[in-house]
């Protein structure tokens, strides 16, 4: 709330002082992100990424004066719902960008779509809205949740991994991760272990892993769980013995704590800060210069979301009220993505490449993910076929 007030206050101050009267209609974007609690680091990345893009474009997306209103969903569905309603009713935003977590998206999806506003997800990509329930107003600039795990399964299958120990938290996303991995991986599965969400001590699971005679471990342990698991995995001396395949477990939000313990482990994703593309490198360096930390995929996807909006609004000459034109232009996705080429599938989830990522310590002592190899090329998700759009 405080954040919201200060952003609004800044926007009002800006409106009165510096911005000349524009002919084009103004654009109001509402960001619904998780900014409190330990997962707040993910939302912070997205917020900073989006704001950086708006700032770089001189405060106007597609030529329309842009106001960004940020609200915190606190990772509670009821809070997300209240906050998004105030964005729709009081602030009268044109576009809602959110969320980080899939269960938050489930909470805000209906009210936004019902109000006939455009919803762009900068991270959450649940299967729920990718298939039958796809909607013309809903776009995703990240990925479909299962895809990173499918890519890891494919990598394991193609690289002679024989036996895998699987570990994930006991909630929907954890179970989806396991199923995603098994789509391409057909080898032995030593065990599938589910831990409580927010698990503290992995010593019991690590003892099971060590004695499971597996040559690889597959895991999905976001946030603090990933920090603890990676540290204890390394302390147990398992890093040298088996391949560590993960998604959302070793990334720019956890590496500052994991440090050397994560070097040698693998992640999967669509992008890394070392991505070989000039505009991507510009993005990384200006992000670091402004915010003082390494941007991860969360920041990049939000940055891309802002560029996507920019491209669509300029296609309708800044006339945000032309909703049909705006949505058609969004679907075109004619913007310079940090991932190189970017196209939407029929369900408006991206079609893109997936990479194996390794962890590197940079010369300045910071850690980042780096592209190791391409696993899937121009990959669409498994649910698009069910979408009649």
């Amino acid at each position, binding site marked *: 709330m405080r954040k919201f007030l200060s952003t609004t206050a800044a926007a009002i101050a800006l409106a009165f002082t510096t911005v000349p009267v524009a002919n084009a209609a103004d654009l109001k974007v509402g960001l619904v992100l998780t900014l*409190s*609690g*330990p*997962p*707040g*680091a993910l939302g*912070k990345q997205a917020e900073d990424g989006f704001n950086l893009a708006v700032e770089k474009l001189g405060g106007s997306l597609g030529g329309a004066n842009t106001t960004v209103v940020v609200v915190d969903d606190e990772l509670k569905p009821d809070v997300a719902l209240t906050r998004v309603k105030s964005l729709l009713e009081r602030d009268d935003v044109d576009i809602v960008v959110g969320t980080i977590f899939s269960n938050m998206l489930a909470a805000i999806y209906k009210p936004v779509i019902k109000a006939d506003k455009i919803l762009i997800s900068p991270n959450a990509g649940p299967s729920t809205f990718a298939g039958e329930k796809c909607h013309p107003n809903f776009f995703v600039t990240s990925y479909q949740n299962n895809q990173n795990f499918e890519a890891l399964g494919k990598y394991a299958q193609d690289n002679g991994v024989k036996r895998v120990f699987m570990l994930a938290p*006991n909630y929907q996303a954890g179970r989806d991760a396991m199923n995603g991995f098994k789509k391409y991986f057909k080898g032995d599965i030593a065990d*599938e*272990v*589910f*831990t*409580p969400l*927010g698990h*503290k*001590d992995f*010593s*019991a*699971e*690590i*003892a*099971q892993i*060590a*004695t499971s005679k597996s040559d690889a471990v597959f895991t999905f342990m976001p*946030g*603090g769980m990933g*920090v*603890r698991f990676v*540290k*204890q995995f390394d*302390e*147990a*001396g*398992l890093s040298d*013995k088996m391949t560590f395949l993960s998604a959302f477990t070793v990334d720019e*939000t*956890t590496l*500052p*704590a*994991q*440090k050397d313990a994560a070097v040698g482990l693998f992640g999967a994703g669509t992008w890394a800060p070392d991505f070989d593309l000039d505009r991507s490198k510009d993005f990384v360096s200006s992000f670091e210069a402004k915010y003082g930390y390494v941007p991860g995929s969360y920041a990049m996807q939000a940055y891309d979301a802002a560029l996507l909006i920019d491209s669509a609004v300029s296609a309708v000459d800044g006339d945000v009220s032309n909703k049909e034109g705006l949505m058609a232009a969004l679907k075109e996705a004619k913007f310079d993505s940090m991932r190189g080429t970017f196209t939407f599938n029929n369900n408006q989830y991206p079609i893109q490449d997936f990479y194996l990522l390794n962890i590197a310590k940079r010369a300045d002592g910071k850690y980042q993910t780096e592209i190791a190899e391409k696993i899937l090329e121009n990959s669409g998700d498994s649910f698009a076929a069910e979408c009649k759009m």
Partner: protein
Amino acid sequence: MSMSLFLVQSLNGLQFGILLFLIAAGLTLVFGVMGFINLAHGVQYMIGAYLTFMFFQWTTNFFIALLLGMIVALIIGLACEMFIFRHLYQRNHLDQVLATFGIILFVNELVKVIWGPSSLILPPPEIFSWSFEIIEGLRYPIYRLVVIAVGITVAVGLYFAVFKTRVGMLVRAGATNPEMVSALGVDIKRLFMIVFGFGTMLAGFAGAIAAPMFSLEPNMGDDLLITVFVVIIIGGIGSIRGAFIAAVLIGLLDTLGRAVTTDILRLFFDPSTANQIGPALSSMLIYILMAVVLFFKPEGLFPVHRAG
């Protein structure tokens, strides 16, 4: 599960139990002696960890950091007692729950403002940062064994302090009949303050020595607090001995339960059903144990006898 794996898992369970005991010891005394429900006890665990982390950054010596952290944790505990908790002793339990819950929200937010929301890592002290091969293919950090040893030492020390010293005698007397102790000319307020300060320091100590095994994050004490309440209820409120036995029991049950529940269920169900039920059932085991204990011994395993 092979015998060696079973032993390793038991060691992990013991170590978790010891950690629970360090937190539970203070809570059971405060609850038992003063009849005061302090939900903010888990906050002290977090404060201990964060203070030690802060002093470690300044001094780069774990032991000095731990010492300074404990001193400051004690001061914070005593200050809270003097300014907040003291005014709640005469109120009913609901007021106490409400007030201490407010403290949880406040301190968690404060920690986030000062240290940020991300997980932080405190390295173990240099001399304990090696590991040894406990079974083939698995290295065990020596620091975890040190934590077990320290925990047992504290348990023995507490036992002597409570049963063999004058202060301990007063504490036990205070738990049984506070009015009588007060009538005999003992400053019960000061006694309560000592018990409270010591209890919170112990929770802070648990947080500080647990930090190198896990990670630091805001809210880190809150999940543990629920388990710790289960421990003191099973052990009998106010009983140090009960808290120790219940803590080890819960530690072993939780750790071994997670390791074997799904495997056992696979004997009866197909694998995917076992995978659905197993994790849910294993997180319920400690509550099932509590229900069973309370059914047979409503006062816990080692009830403290109260006058009137």
